[in-house]
Every structure is written in structure tokens, then in C-alpha cells.
């Protein structure tokens, strides 16, 4: 099934918008499973699904659904 990955900040450089907005995952996959597939998972600090922040401890139990919008934010540095 397809989900929409919404990457912010430096993570925007990791995937093209076309790939990110049509990201394919298996049925029943959890947020944590999906994140593990991303090579930049170590830099993801905050996750939200359809606008709701998902705590790190809840990522393993949250099952993604078709067309979910998953927003990923990196840690940032001021300047």
C-alpha cells in the first residue's frame, strides 16, 4: 500500500518528492518497521501520522494505513 512520507529539513535531501509521496509499504506494517527501512532513521527525532505526534514508545504499536501522511522531522542546529 502507499503512504505519503513528508520529510522536513535536511531529510528532504534524502528522497525525491516523487518517491516520498508514493512510498510503498506492506499491509499491516508498523511505524517502527517502516522507519527501520529508511537509511536515515537515526536522524529522525519526531514522527507524526496525519498530524498527530507519535511518541517513540508508541511507534512499534502504531499500524500504518493506506494513504497515511507520515511526517518526519530531524534534529536541527541553529544558525
Amino acid at each position, binding site marked *: 500500500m502507499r503512504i505519503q512520507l513528508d520529510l522536513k529539513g*535536511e531529510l528532504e535531501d534524502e528522497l525525491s518528492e516523487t518517491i516520498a509521496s508514493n512510498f510503498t509499504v506492506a499491509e499491516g506494517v508498523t511505524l517502527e518497521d517502516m522507519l527501520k527501512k529508511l537509511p536515515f532513521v537515526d536522524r529522525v527525532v519526531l514522527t507524526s501520522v496525519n498530524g498527530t505526534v507519535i511518541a517513540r514508545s508508541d511507534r512499534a504499536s502504531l499500524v500504518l494505513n493506506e494513504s497515511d501522511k507520515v511526517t518526519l522531522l530531524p534534529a536541527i542546529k541553529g544558525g
Partner: protein
Amino acid sequence: MGWQQKVLRVDLNAGTCTTEPLNMEWAAQYIGTRGLATRYLMENMDPAVDALSPENVLIFATGPLGGTLTSTSGRYAVVTKGPLTGAIACSNSGGKFGAELKFSGYDLMIVTGKSERPVYLLIEDDEAKLINAEDLWGRTVWDTEETIKARHHSEDMKVASIGVAGERGVYYACIVNDLHRAAGRSGVGAVMGSKNLKAVAARGSRGIRVKDPLRFMKVVEEKNQKLVDDPGRRSLTKSGTLSMMNVMQEFGGLPTNNFRDVQFDGVAKVNHKAVREKRHGHRNLLTNKACFGCTIACGRIAHIDKNHFSVVNRKEYWHASGGLEYETAFAFGPVVGVDDLDALTFAGYMMNEHGMDPISFGVTLAAAMELYELGVITREQTDGIDLRFGNAEALTVMSEKTGKYEGFGRELALGSKRLCEKYGHPELAMVVKGQEFAGYDSRALQGMGLGYATGNRGACHLRHDTFAEDMEDVSGKGKAQPCKDSQDNVAAIDSVGICLFTASAWDLGDLADQMDAACEGTWTAERLREAGERIWNLERLFNMKAGLTAADDTLPPRMLKDPAPTGMAKGKVNELDVMLPEYYALREWSVDGVPTRALLQRLDLEAFALADSA
């Protein structure tokens, strides 16, 4: 080794330039730039003096790794008492001037007194002299730099100067070097202006000796590769700091309309994508640019659409110059509600040309806009300009008026605190210790709020790093420790003489490896950390001797009482009341924020103990 071991002392009262050996015992404890200059400042002035009096001391300082092969080694710091805050000011800049000062043979330059007439300082290796600058007084930074270079027939000369803003005492005037790099914060340019010192021009030919050249080169190569491979570095090269705009918008920490809001509707018009897009046949961003010895190159070079209202008949602004970074974009965009990219870029040009801190200017203009919308300030007072949020003309006109110290610009020159106090609404000034907030709302970023409140130079985002912790959890829980630890680490990084952006890839161990190969003694991460803690506490002691107290470690009522209206911290206020006592305890300070004698003994700071140190 590393250090040049020489200090240039400039006595503006007497008109003399003399040299003296660097105090190597202090260098061993305070490293360089920020730390070492603070130690010299404590020795050379009474912190209680008026910041704009001749008794204030102005120090330009480089670090032991400055000018070496280490990446980003072009940094220098200006350390003095800040007129904006009445606290210690330490303002750090890139470009090429810092390395040139070191190539001239000096670690520090200490400026005392006040010249009877405007002068500039010319440094050419061992020769340093003061030259009449009456013909330069009243001229812009850009004009001054060009004129001095032409006068001395040297395009290679590096110049740091002030514009009219510094001459006229704009409280947040800065010192600009290499046309568009700046020692930007706390009003260090106003101190320079108060001394009738228009510019410092340096041309050096000396190398920098390191302890173990072969080991140093090997270590530098290894660390540079680590920086090359770092994704944070890659992002800074590609997008600069501007990519943070979307992150803060999503998170709900993007200060908008003088911090009333935390998300900005016009964000897509001023973010890192907008500067790359062609609009009306014009693309704002031209290229990126690196400072001396830098392998990151986060700097942006941009140009303004020739048809934009701000420059349509002004060819002098059609050239490429310094472009938008996150802080300038926030300060000319969301916080004043403006989404006109060319207007933002023009305001940036004004900051560089006339020598002003964009953060303080933008947040001061935002406060004035709120006062205007409340009816406290009227159109008659603003030279006929409609000062409502979102008006791009208000931004461009006022940035120029303030830089030239004209009309309502003289009111904006006061900074937010003095402006809002003057008009009877001190609560609208988004400041700590008189210095304006950077582009992060401290209801969404709780640790940022603690860092602002305890910042030795007032509100500042570059004195600590709690971003990761803040974004993991929007409460104040667990923020005091990373705030304290990162404050100490940043003090060490600054004092080595390199750019804070290396911290994306390098920890103190990486710095210690390079220090140990370049400098006398044995350098470890722990030694650097302890030096950082010593520096932080010495800055604190300077401030307390200047008259600041724990009452100054606070945030404006908007952050403490008005809940964030939207975003991921919706409904939250900053939990400073919880974080601050925990922070004081971790710092080994009393409940009144005074460093204890036991701490001062551990850090070899007993000589600076306050009368009420427990």
C-alpha cells in the same frame, strides 16, 4: 604553537599600539577567542562601567586552531560589555578577517579608551598604526571596506568595520567583515563606534606553527573526511540553515507576528525552496560561499529582482551579496509577517551595508508593529509608513532608515526592550537581558527557553544545543542537564576558534585530537569540557559584577503565561519555573544563581568570587 603568543594593545586615548606576550597560563585555561578574551576583559576593566563609555574595553580574539588547516578556522570573536544588554557581549564571525588577524601575528587585539577623532587601525604584520578616518565617518561598511583597500593598494587586505549604525549607537549595531560576515549580536559595533574606531584592516604574512605538523595533517585529514561524510554538513552545504524553516513551521516553533503565533501562513514563499525557484524570470539564490578554510560553505549568495519595488531605480543594489539564512529569514519574514522574498533579501543587504544585527532589528520591528496595531504608535510617528504586520514596504523602508539613523529608525535603534518600555508596554519585548530572541519559540522548544533565560549574552540560540531533546518532548522535563552540558561544550568549541557548525560531525574528542597535535600540552575532551565550564562561569561572574542577578534569568510573560496557539506544543507555556532551579543545582550555583565557592575553587576561579558566594 597554535597560538601566536602575542597580543596587540591599542590605546585610543594615547593613540599608541604596543605589543606584549600572550599570557600562556591563561591560554592553557581559557583556550582562545571567547574564553581567553573574557579572561583578559576581566583583567582590564570594571564590569560595572557604562558599555558606551571610554572605560569599556573591546577585544578582537582568534583561537589556537584559527588560521590552521582545521576546517572552518577563520573565526574570530569580539568580546566587550554589550550596550544592548549591560552583560558580557561575545560576538563571533566568519569570513576571512579572523585568519588574517592571526596571520598578522596576533592572538588578541585589546582596544582601550576613546580616540579624539575617528580613526581606523591598520595592521601589517609587526606594524600597527592608527590612521585618521574623518573622511570615512558617515560612510557605509561596503564603502569603507572598498576605500581602505584602494587606499592601501591591497585587494588581499581584510577589513572589519562599522557603518552609521555603529557610529550613532544603534544598540544592536554590529561589526561587519568581508562585506557580509558579521560579529552580529549584542551591539559590539556600537561599542566600536563609541570609541571613534571606524575599522580594523589587517594584512598578514606570518604562518602558524603547530606542535607536530605531520600528526596534525593526518588528524586534520581524518576529521575533514568525517565532516565530508556527515549528512548534517551535506544539508548545510546544499540548503544552508534555511531548511530549518519548514521544520519549525511543522513543529509549531516558528515565531510569527512578534511571537503571538508559532506558525506562518506565508512560509512557502520564504523557505529554502522559495529561494531556488524562478519567479518572474528571477531566482533569488545564486550560489553558496565558504568562509576561510571552511569545508561546509553554508553561506548564501543572492540577488534581488531588479524590478522589485525596493531596488527598481537603485542600480547600486542589483549586485549579488549575502543571501538569506534561517535567522535572517525568520527575522525579516515570519516574525514581522512578511512573505516577500526580495524584501527580505533587501533588508539583509541593509544589515550588511549599515552594520546591524538582523535578529535584533527584525524582532524590534515586530514589537513596533504590535505597538502600531494596538494604536500606541501612529502613522504620524512612523514617517507615514503603515507599520502593520505583513507590510513588505515597512520592512524595507525601516531597515534602511534604522541603518542610516533617520526618522522612525531612531526609535527602532533602541532595540525591543527600550522601545517597548518607552511606549509603556515592556511585556511586548521578546528579549532576555535586553537581547532579542532568535527564531525559535520557547513554548514549543522548552530547553531553548532555558538556554535563552540563562544565556550570558542574553537570548541566544548559539550558546547551547537542546534541539533534539526539545523535539522529542515538549515539556520542561529533562532539559536542564543537556542545556548545561551543551553550554559548556559550545563555550569550548567557540574558544578553539572554529565554527559551531562542525558540531554536526565533530564532538569535543575530535577537537581535542586536533588541539593536541597543534598546541602545547595534552588536550583531551575532558580538558576542553572543563575549560568550557570555566568560561561559562567566568562570563556569569562578569555579569554579576556588572549588576545582573538571578532576576535577569527569565522570559517575557508571553512565553510564561500565553499558551502556544497552535502546533505540537499547542496549549503549552514555557516551564521555566521547573527547569531553572534544576539548572542552578546542576551548575553548583546557589538558589540565587551565584556560583558557589566550592565550584570556583574547582575551576580555579576563586579570585573572582563574589561577596555573597556561599
